[in-house]
């Protein structure tokens, strides 16, 4: 294991502290906690969006806290949901009086911890709605879509919910927009290498020098097929075929695309993948309203990428295009 770190047990907190130090214009750390809120929190009258989950997916989650995005981000240890107390306390700091949307990936650890925190907030009389991201096509069949796990598509859901909340929508409206964004988003990834949890020091799975696995999850969960590494064009078309089979997108539709690096993938490779994706989509008669290419939701030092597609309607298009300013996204 070769990492630019100090104590392996302090990776989550030190990375968060670095983020806060780098972007004081957008966020501040909640005192004593492994969490951040918008620098201008609480915003009175605005629904607060709280996101979070295990660390190791930087810049997710805390990197998406800012204007037009989330109000709060709570980081657990590497690959572990944060516990209820910091979720609860961070929510209290971010709450602007009109309720809170919990927005996170659908993993049982996260569900257990966020649900407990939501109960504690309810006891305090604070309204909490929850939307769980379930964009990973590979993680369960279509008839059990609600069991799917959440991966890079969570970026789109935060973007949409954040923009909706910025319009001073109600909690129900913000939750509805997030639910729609999630329902319209599909992601599938490909892994070329394992990742290594700092405190463990060992790769979490084995993969041969010439192998890749399509559909692998961001914690090494099994995907849909393992085989010899193929050219980027073939990988892109296999992934897009799986996505489009799961979410039929009629010709003429408008969409957004995210080609996401898992942590150890050079930008050049992501652009080569997007080149294939973009051409496929143009040939399918789709209009790409906006493209995002980069490290948006990582898996520690895993090599590989994921492709996320969000099908847009007029509302989603408007919200996607709305301005945003946070460490991991600036859009005018």
């Amino acid at each position, binding site marked *: 294991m070769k990492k630019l770190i100090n104590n392996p047990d302090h990776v989550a907190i030190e990375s968060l502290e670095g983020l806060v130090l780098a972007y004081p214009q957008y966020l501040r750390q909640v005192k004593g906690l492994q969490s951040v809120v918008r620098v201008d929190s609480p915003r009175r009258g605005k629904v607060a969006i709280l996101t979070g989950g295990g660390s190791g997916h930087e810049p997710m989650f805390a990197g998406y806290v800012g204007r037009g995005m989330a109000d709060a981000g709570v980081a657990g240890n590497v*690959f572990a*949901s944060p516990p209820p107390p910091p979720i609860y306390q961070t929510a209290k700091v971010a709450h602007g009086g009109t309720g809170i949307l919990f927005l996170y990936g659908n993993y049982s650890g996260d569900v257990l911890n966020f649900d407990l925190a939501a109960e504690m907030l309810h006891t305090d009389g604070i309204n909490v709605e929850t939307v769980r991201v379930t964009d990973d096509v590979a993680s369960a069949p279509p008839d059990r879509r609600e069991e799917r796990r959440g991966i890079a598509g969570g970026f789109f859901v935060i973007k949409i919910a954040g923009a909706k909340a910025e319009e001073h929508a109600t909690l129900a409206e913000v939750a509805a927009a997030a639910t729609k964004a999630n329902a319209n988003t599909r992601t599938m990834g490909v892994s070329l290498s394992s990742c290594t949890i700092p405190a463990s020091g060992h790769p979490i799975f084995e993969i041969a020098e010439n192998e890749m696995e399509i559909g692998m999850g961001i914690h090494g969960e099994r995907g849909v097929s393992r085989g010899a590494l193929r050219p980027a064009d073939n990988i892109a078309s296999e992934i897009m075929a799986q996505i489009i089979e799961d979410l039929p997108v009629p010709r003429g539709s408008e969409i957004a695309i995210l080609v996401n690096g898992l942590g150890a993938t050079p930008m050049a490779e992501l652009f080569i993948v997007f080149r294939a994706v973009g051409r496929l989509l143009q040939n399918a008669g789709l209009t790409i309203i906006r493209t995002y290419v980069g490290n948006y939701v990582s898996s520690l030092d895993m090599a590989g990428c994921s492709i996320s597609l969000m099908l847009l309607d007029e509302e989603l298009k408007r919200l996607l295009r709305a301005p945003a300013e946070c460490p991991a996204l600036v859009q005018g």
Partner: protein
Amino acid sequence: MAKNEITSQDLKKMLSFVAGRIEKEEAHLNSLDAAIGDGDHGITMRLGFQAIRAKLNELDQVSMDMLLVESGLAFMGATGGAIGVVLGKMLMAAGKSLKGKERMGSDEFKILLCAMESSVSNSGKIKCGDKTILDALSSACQVEYGPDPSLTETISAAAAAAESGARKTSHMVCRVGRASRLGDRTLGHPDPGALSFSLILHAMADWLHDSDQRTQSA
């Protein structure tokens, strides 16, 4: 003769001993979790028990029930993840079952086990056979004991049962947790949470055995 009861002071020492054992098993538990989950279970257990140990050092003259409730809170607060809530709640339930007691003997321990089991199964989401910590816990609850067992005998038997329950999870397919989407790939590997629970009981039994010997030789 085996010691029949322990006090709050004993429990404190015992928990600290358990913490040491869990820390030693970190790499082993990580590798079990890497096979079917995300490879962090040993880390999480270590962090949780380190937090328990730190909390125990703070607490002085605390009743048995509060010792366990505080341990549960400390564990949950320091870890997160699935095991944080599940084991945290188990410890709190264990504590509540001892409310008003100054000593824990065999009977109290049996009740405590049941209370822990309820805290997990009452969540409604998990049942036996789902390949979780519950499979080790239920096995421990179902032990049939001889007449009037000592606490040491009770915990030893529970530990053995938990271990065999944990072993059996190898033949189960995971339905929940970060491992749940692996489906069949989880076959042939035991559930790390179940194994952790059996390790905890074994460590408790070992501590009691040592303690019994200390008493005898004294």
